[in-house]
């Protein structure tokens, strides 16, 4: 009897640990960063690493006076407004003409049973209108996405998990986020949760809270704009894990989980980062 009771209690404990609801996850995530950086207001995490690095924050404010993503914004606006060969534009593919909608991405598409991202829908729009899809990590797609994010600045992320399939996609992204991989045996969380704020060589590790809010970003290291999936790719390579395809199911689910963790925070993209 004792043994059965122990087993039942153990199983209940494991189930409880494994199946925290997304809202419980998000609350715990936010609380963790509140405790880790007590002087940082939650809404400031949209500024990424600059929220926890005062000297770098001052420099970044100067950079923001003439932001390096400005050219991408201009290019993105022009591309967004230029009609396709069939006369239609991106505005025809999105709700509200594509303006001020970044906060609703990624979302779970009940029809396809898949997580959909903004960049994915930009390309779907192109294909639907007879144009070739763009490469997903940088270039024109980053500019268009940057422009769309810019029109959404200040809107609050509102990622929904509408059904069990969506929950499975969320859990899949969560598993990816917390799984150690690569020769260095690091998970995303190892750097950006447990060691956030610590130095890795000359750089401070940014906090995970608010991470997706400022993408796409202009990175000085790239001397270029890049999408969130370009950054996932880079992070994986840094721990010597073979990156997975940009906009593949794994990275889309990862974006879904990570953005859910930033629900309620403001869109702040595009950003400028080191």
């Amino acid at each position, binding site marked *: 009897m004792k043994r059965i009771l122990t087993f039942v209690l153990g199983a209940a404990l494991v189930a409880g640990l494994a199946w*925290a609801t997304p809202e419980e*996850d998000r609350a715990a995530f936010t609380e963790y960063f509140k405790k880790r950086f007590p002087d940082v207001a939650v809404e400031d995490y949209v500024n990424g690493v600059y929220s926890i690095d005062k000297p770098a924050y001052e420099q970044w404010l100067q950079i923001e006076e003439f932001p390096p993503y400005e050219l991408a914004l201009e290019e993105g606006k022009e591309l967004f407004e230029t009609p396709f060969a069939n006369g239609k534009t991106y505005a025809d593919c999105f709700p509200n003409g594509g303006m001020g909608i970044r906060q609703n991405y990624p979302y779970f598409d009940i029809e396809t049973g898949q997580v959909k991202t903004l960049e994915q829908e930009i390309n779907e729009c192109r294909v639907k209108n007879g144009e070739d899809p763009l490469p997903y990590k940088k270039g024109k797609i980053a500019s268009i996405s940057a422009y769309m994010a810019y029109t959404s600045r200040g809107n609050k992320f509102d990622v929904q998990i509408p059904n069990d399939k969506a929950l499975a996609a969320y859990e899949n992204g969560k598993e990816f986020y*917390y799984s*150690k991989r*690569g020769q260095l045996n690091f*998970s995303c*969380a190892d750097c950006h949760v447990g060691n956030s704020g610590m130095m890795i060589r000359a750089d401070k590790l940014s906090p995970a809270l608010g991470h997706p809010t400022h993408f796409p970003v202009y990175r000085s290291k790239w001397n270029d704009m890049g999408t969130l999936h370009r950054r996932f790719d880079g992070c994986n390579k840094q721990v*010597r*894990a*073979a990156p997975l395809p940009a906009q593949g199911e794994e990275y889309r689910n990862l974006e879904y989980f990570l953005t859910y963790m930033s629900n309620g925070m403001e869109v702040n993209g595009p950003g400028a980062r080191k």
Partner: protein
Amino acid sequence: MKKTLLIAGVLAMAGLGAAPAQAADEAAAKASCTAAEEARKMAAELKFEWTTTQPLIAKGMEAASKGEYAHAVKLCDEARMQGEAAVAQAKNQADAWRAAVVK
């Protein structure tokens, strides 16, 4: 004359032995690199491949093509171990990740 004959005989015997030895070394290198590629593929299927594995296999194959079989075996054995470690990592993390979740 006797000495010359003796040397010639020894050289001939060494030559006869060299061909099968080379074939064995080549086969060992090939087997090592094939095993490494299989381990790498298995890790890739689990989406846990390491970036360091494929370059080692490529270097191993290159060494084998130059006849440097021992070096090829060393490189490909290392690659195989990496592939196997990546598979073990994937299997371990299938459950272990839950313990890392912020609660």
